[in-house]
């Protein structure tokens, strides 16, 4: 038996089983649960890399669960698109788990740490499952695994508002998931299949059917809620603000990206691009909503005084970019959108981890608390600054690359009015980040702020790695862009 054949399923099975093993092994010593979490997320990352390697050399991988032939059995499919997203998710999960040890010890009760790691792995397993599955009902199940784990992770937050944030997310998330379930039911009713590739073949002759269109509407609304597209973002700011730092980082960097991936899958793989462009005006609606999200997210972020809430609103804006690139539906913009999935994960990850380090050291979440921190915590603040200028979109950082692709894509589609919107949003981003960066380096700190006292290495190294990659992939943008380009071709041009 060749173990490499089973990589597509191992990437789910390993975190899922470990989530069960952790409470037993780590019962008396939380350190063991941390070791397992790091080992599992690292192995998931390595497996994802190897999957991408296989896809590059041999083409699409199709894995039949239990040997049952699709469309009867569940199929896991790995192509350029999901190999790319898998790597992003697994890498961020690994980096955040490295960071988790110190941060979790500080922010979460001793007796809750082991269950925390267990749920963390369930969350990762759910996200990986959404990405890798080729069966639409399986997607729903994994979506719920990830969501339920997500509600629990948010509720661990220290302030009591975390409970309400989690509850609201639970209600909205369940509505979204039920919409998706209903959409699946409608598609099953008219086609009799649940396999995505099979649906793709069978649906075109039914594109005029009202049932299919209704199903598509349910999918779009449900997934938009999951990925927090404006105006369905209401759950996001509170959830990110009150969750523990580690959870904010992993959720901001991966959960909404996976939602965006699921939307792309449904829009361009289950349905064909012609359906989105010609049969229903979904791309037009999404472009308008995405533009509003880009502006509104930035405007709302400017108005915030809490760091994490500011980053959360900025996420709402950045999700707008991802949806915008996808809705433009041309190769360049789609590449930009996929790149933004990676790039935004890196920058938001770096920013949330840097803020987490400040919370660890000083317990401050307010923007005013960062005054003069450049002297006290130079490395953390350097990472924050890199993340910040990346968000603004300064050349040689990742933020610039994906915005550049999306602007080019907008021009290619003759939608010039998108360009000023992106410029305006970048300007607003500059406003809300620059006032912080200025405070960090030019304001005079209060008394104790003069002494250098940076975060411990356990927090610093993961933060610096993400910040470093923001620069690295900003310069060496060719590497992710070539993969994203191939994925975009696949989404738009067929198999």
């Amino acid at each position, binding site marked *: 038996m060749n173990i490499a054949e089973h990589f597509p399923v191992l990437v789910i099975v390993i975190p899922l089983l470990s989530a069960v093993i952790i409470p037993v092994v780590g019962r008396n010593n939380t350190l063991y649960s941390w070791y397992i979490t790091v080992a599992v997320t690292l192995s998931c990352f390595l497996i994802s890399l190897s999957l991408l390697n296989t896809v590059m050399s041999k083409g699409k991988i199709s894995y039949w669960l239990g040997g049952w032939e699709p469309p009867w059995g569940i199929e896991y499919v790995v192509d350029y698109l999901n190999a790319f997203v898998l790597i992003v998710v697994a890498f961020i999960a690994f980096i955040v788990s490295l960071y988790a040890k110190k941060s979790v010890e500080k922010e979460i009760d001793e007796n809750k740490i082991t269950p925390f790691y267990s749920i963390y792995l369930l969350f990762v397993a759910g996200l990986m499952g959404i990405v890798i599955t080729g069966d639409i009902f399986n997607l729903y199940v994994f979506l719920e695994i990830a969501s*339920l784990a997500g509600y629990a992770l948010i509720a661990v937050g*220290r*302030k*009591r508002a975390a*409970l309400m944030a989690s*509850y609201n997310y*639970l209600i909205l998330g369940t509505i979204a998931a*039920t919409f998706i379930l209903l959409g699946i039911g409608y598609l*099953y009713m008219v086609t009799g299949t649940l396999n995505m590739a099979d649906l793709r073949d069978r649906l075109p002759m039914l594109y005029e059917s009202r049932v299919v269109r209704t199903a598509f509407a349910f999918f779009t609304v449900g997934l938009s809620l999951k990925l927090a597209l404006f105006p369905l973002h209401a759950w996001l700011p509170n959830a990110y603000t*009150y969750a523990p730092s580690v959870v904010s980082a992993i959720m901001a960097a991966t959960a909404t990206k996976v939602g965006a991936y699921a939307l792309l899958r449904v829009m361009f793989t289950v349905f064909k691009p012609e359906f989105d462009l010609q049969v229903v005006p979904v791309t037009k609606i999404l472009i308008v909503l995405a533009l509003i999200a880009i502006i509104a997210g930035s405007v709302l972020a400017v108005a915030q005084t809490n760091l994490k809430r500011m980053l959360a609103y900025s996420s709402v804006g950045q999700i707008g970019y991802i949806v915008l690139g996808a809705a433009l539906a041309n190769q360049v913009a789609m590449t930009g959108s996929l790149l933004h999935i990676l790039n935004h994960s890196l920058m938001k990850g770096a920013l949330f981890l840097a803020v987490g380090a400040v919370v660890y050291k000083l317990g401050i979440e307010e923007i005013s608390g960062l005054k003069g921190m450049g002297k006290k915590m130079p490395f953390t603040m350097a990472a924050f600054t890199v993340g910040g200028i990346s968000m603004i979109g300064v050349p040689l950082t990742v933020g610039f690359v994906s915005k550049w692709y999306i602007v080019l894509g907008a021009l290619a589609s003759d939608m010039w009015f998108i360009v000023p919107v992106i410029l305006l949003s970048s300007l607003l981003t500059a406003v809300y980040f620059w006032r912080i960066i200025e405070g960090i380096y030019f304001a005079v700190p209060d008394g104790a702020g003069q002494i250098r006292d940076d975060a411990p290495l356990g927090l610093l190294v993961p933060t610096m790695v993400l910040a470093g990659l923001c620069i690295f992939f900003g310069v060496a943008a060719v590497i992710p862009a070539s993969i994203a380009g191939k994925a975009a071709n696949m989404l738009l041009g067929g198999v």
Partner: protein
Amino acid sequence: MLEFIAGKYNYWIHVTLMMIGFYAIIAKGNLIKKVIGMNIFQTAVFLFYISISKVKGGTAPIVWDEAVLYNNPLPHVLILTAIVVSVSTTAVALALIIRIYREYGTIEEDEILAMGGERINAQR
């Protein structure tokens, strides 16, 4: 017209139930009532799945010599999974409500929002 209403009664029931649940989620201020609404909302979708699996003249999908037609068992299986999901969601929601009640002393949404949430959890 009668055909439209009577012939598709299962869909009418499903949509009506779903909207009752949806209304409860949106309009009710009590957190428990919201969860009840959520359950009605989900159950409506389950009933929809079950109703589409019915084949006219079909029997339960168990191998039987006299059977001519079987109902489609696949939606049943899917819904078993969805019910498990629904039960877990309800459990998580109720667990959260218990914690919320301990922290705030109420489960009315407007009262909770008026109180503010900055206080650090008392339990720890």
